[in-house]
């Protein structure tokens, strides 16, 4: 097969994967710190897309900047959602039941957000027109869509920012401590509940920003969450539930898998490769690439 074609698919896959990676980091952060699988993650992304659209329409703000501007409001929203809803679910003290209950809660939240958005914002797809969405950089024989390239670059910047936050700042270290061992963290005067709020807020802000970047080249409509939520789950599980670098790598891999699947399967089956990868990871290496195996007996 012509190598140029293969490289093209790989390049496209990586570009797309970069945005998936940013989406997935939010999910991984939330799971890593709170042990909550946030079913509503995709829906917050959708809301982020709409806010970015609003910025573009009302303020002529470029989506790449708009994406960054979604971070503050969505951080606050995430914090409030945690404080008002998730923190109230305790499962009667049993951690497994608490996890199940929080999962159901986020599923319910997802349904509410998607359907309320359909009602209020109408199902008509919208798009943001940018000059660069239809142009491409030429790197030798390989064409890189400009919108996707810029989105990829921004995603990298934000991911690095999160990484620096987690590893270099005190707040970030407190967050990781609360994730590793909540009880020990509490003894170190770390407010674990506040850490959960911080993690959830950051996770939501990140996925909203990813949505904003996506809005630069992807149609915006209320049901868009459905297309991406499973991709996010796969990326996070592939990387190792709870590992941030893992989620980033997982996102890139999923982008690649999705793109390379197109070499052998028609467009409609594009996500089949992803689902099969999902199942393979769960069976062969459930702790993912960077995850830790828990002791059982």
């Amino acid at each position, binding site marked *: 097969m012509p190598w140029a074609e293969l490289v093209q698919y790989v390049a496209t896959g990586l570009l797309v994967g970069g945005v998936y990676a940013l989406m997935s980091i939010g999910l991984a952060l939330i799971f890593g710190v709170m042990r909550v*699988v946030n079913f509503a993650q995709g829906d917050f992304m959708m809301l982020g897309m709409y806010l970015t659209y609003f910025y573009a329409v009302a303020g002529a703000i470029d989506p790449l900047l708009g994406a960054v501007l979604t971070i503050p409001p969505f951080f606050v929203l995430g914090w409030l959602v945690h404080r008002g*809803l998730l923190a*109230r*679910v305790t*499962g*009667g003290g049993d951690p*497994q*039941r608490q*996890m*199940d*209950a*929080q*999962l*159901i*809660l986020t*599923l*319910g*939240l*997802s*349904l*509410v*957000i*998607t*359907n*309320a958005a*359909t*009602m209020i914002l109408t*199902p008509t797809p919208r798009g943001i027109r940018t000059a660069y969405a239809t142009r491409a950089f030429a790197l030798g024989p390989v064409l890189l869509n400009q919108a996707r390239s810029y989105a990829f670059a921004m995603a990298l910047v934000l991911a690095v920012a999160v990484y620096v936050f987690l590893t270099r700042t005190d707040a970030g270290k407190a967050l990781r401590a609360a994730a590793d061992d909540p009880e020990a963290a509490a003894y170190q005067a770390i407010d674990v509940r506040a850490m959960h709020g911080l993690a959830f807020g950051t996770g939501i802000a990140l996925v909203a920003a990813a949505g904003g970047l996506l809005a630069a080249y992807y149609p915006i409509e209320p049901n868009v969450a*459905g297309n991406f939520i*499973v991709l996010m*789950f796969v990326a996070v*599980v592939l990387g190792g*539930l709870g590992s941030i670098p893992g989620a980033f790598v997982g996102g890139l891999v999923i982008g690649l898998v999705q793109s390379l699947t197109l070499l052998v399967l*028609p467009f*409609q*089956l594009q*996500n*089949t490769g992803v*689902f*099969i990868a*999902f*199942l393979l990871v*769960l*069976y062969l290496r*459930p702790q993912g690439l960077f995850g830790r195996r828990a002791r*059982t*007996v």
Partner: protein
Amino acid sequence: MRSRGWLAIAGVVVLGVALSLLLQERYHHRVLTLVFLWAAMGLSWNIISGYAGQISFGHQVFFGIGAYVTVLLVVKAGLTPWIGMAVAMAAAVLAAVLIGLPTFRLAGIYFGLATLAYPLIFRIVMDWLGYQEVAVPMVRDRPGWFMQFTDPRSFDLLALAVLAATLVLSRAIETSRLGYRLRAVKENEQAAEAMGVDAFRSKMAAHMLSAAPAAVVGAVYVHAILFIVTPEAVFGLLVISQTLVVSLVGGTGTLWGPLIGAAVMVPVSEVLDSTVGDRLPGIQGVVYGAALMLITLYAPEGLYWRVRQAWQARAARGALLSRGEIAAPAEAAAAAGPGATVLLDVRGVSKSFLGLQALADVSFEVREREILGVIGPNGAGKTTLFNVLNGFLIPDAGDVRLGGEIVTGLRPSALCRRGVGRTFQVVRTFPRLTVLENVMVGAFVRTGGVEPARGIARAALVQVGLADRAGALPAGLTTLDLRLMELARCLATSPRLVLLDEPLAGLSGDGVAVMIAVIRGVRARGATVVIIEHTLQALLRLADRLVVLDQGRRLADGAPEAVTREPAVIEAYLGQRWLARMGSPAC
């Protein structure tokens, strides 16, 4: 008391028929049909996710298979859906096996995530195969033969029949051995395994039993409501959402839950959809989402359990034996001493964990009816040894022979069925089962019937002296009673070999005396006992022989007096002061 459940089911059927006859408008019949169908769907989900505790987010895959197989058989082969339904059921059960085989190896959250993938895969495949829209062909001649009724009452009754069958199935599971085993697996899978419950087979059985009704519901749903099958409509998110809402709002783990959930939620959402659905598309989704959120926040166990708790004061479930019965352990027959034949033969067992050598070439024998004590400092490998003997761990090297048969590598439930019983360092109860029900789980190793199991369980409780606490929940028990319960549960499996992991930990002097008497009674009835203990004084009164482990190695093996005087043992574990104290007459 047991027949009350069946009567209640009959009552529901009668009520359903009455409603069907009373309601006049076509639209009301549609709502009634939907209530029956979603209740049945919720019940089917409840079998795998409520009774067995394996929360599935992909149960609609069986619904969709039922719908597609039935309709495709009508379209392609002209096969009547009455037979097509049976084929669809078989297809769904097969799918349940194929899905369950790999997926049940996953624990906790991974299982739930994996179940998400299957309906998505089916959706994509159906799209790709060109079945985006398969319409049920209208049949003029003998429409009933093709499940196409003009009178909406017929659909009501058909849906009611499906519901009734699913109720009967649920009730049958609840009152059977499988039902007890599923609850045990749900409460504490490892303890269940140690009590002889093959968790994988139980889950698989529940999975298959949950798939069949879902497929039938799917088939009927297509003919009564949908008429056109699309992948989104039968494999999509709204199906599982509706199933979850109905089951969670009503209450899981009981057949009344989905009934109540459906009776409440379906009419509400249908009415909303028909009144404001045009102006507010998606109102159903909002209602379901809000219901899930509200139920999780305010009544996570579901309406049925919440109402039951509030209505019925937690009256003592009562002693199943009168208070006059013996509260002390039953006296054993004349104690027989250790025999000569070797029951347990451990040879060269080694086990390491990522470089930490937990057990290194450990060998010893245990003779029949012997009481063997295993002692050693913390981290010596004692519990690891038990985990190997019990089947929770597979050794890197070495063999374990039980009665001459090599049993290394068998899973815990298999070992339990061969006569190896075990209690745990930290008592592992089935928290929401009563004491008697806890013990019955063990009894099911020896019998298939619920009544015989109850009898065996009662006898075990009498043997340990816990008969008057039979109806209590584990949460209300003292440490001693909890340990006695765990021991009774183990004894109900009729073990040849009983492994006790620190049975005296946390007990006061009186408790220790009771436990020692019970253990002696266990041996007197012919079982062999191996005990890990730190309470040396007590163990010396009890054990015929001691094995000392230190850092994974067997340090000493022999009669207690001799072993406790060996210099290596004193050095590693006992200490000189202990020896001095032992020498004094005040012990």
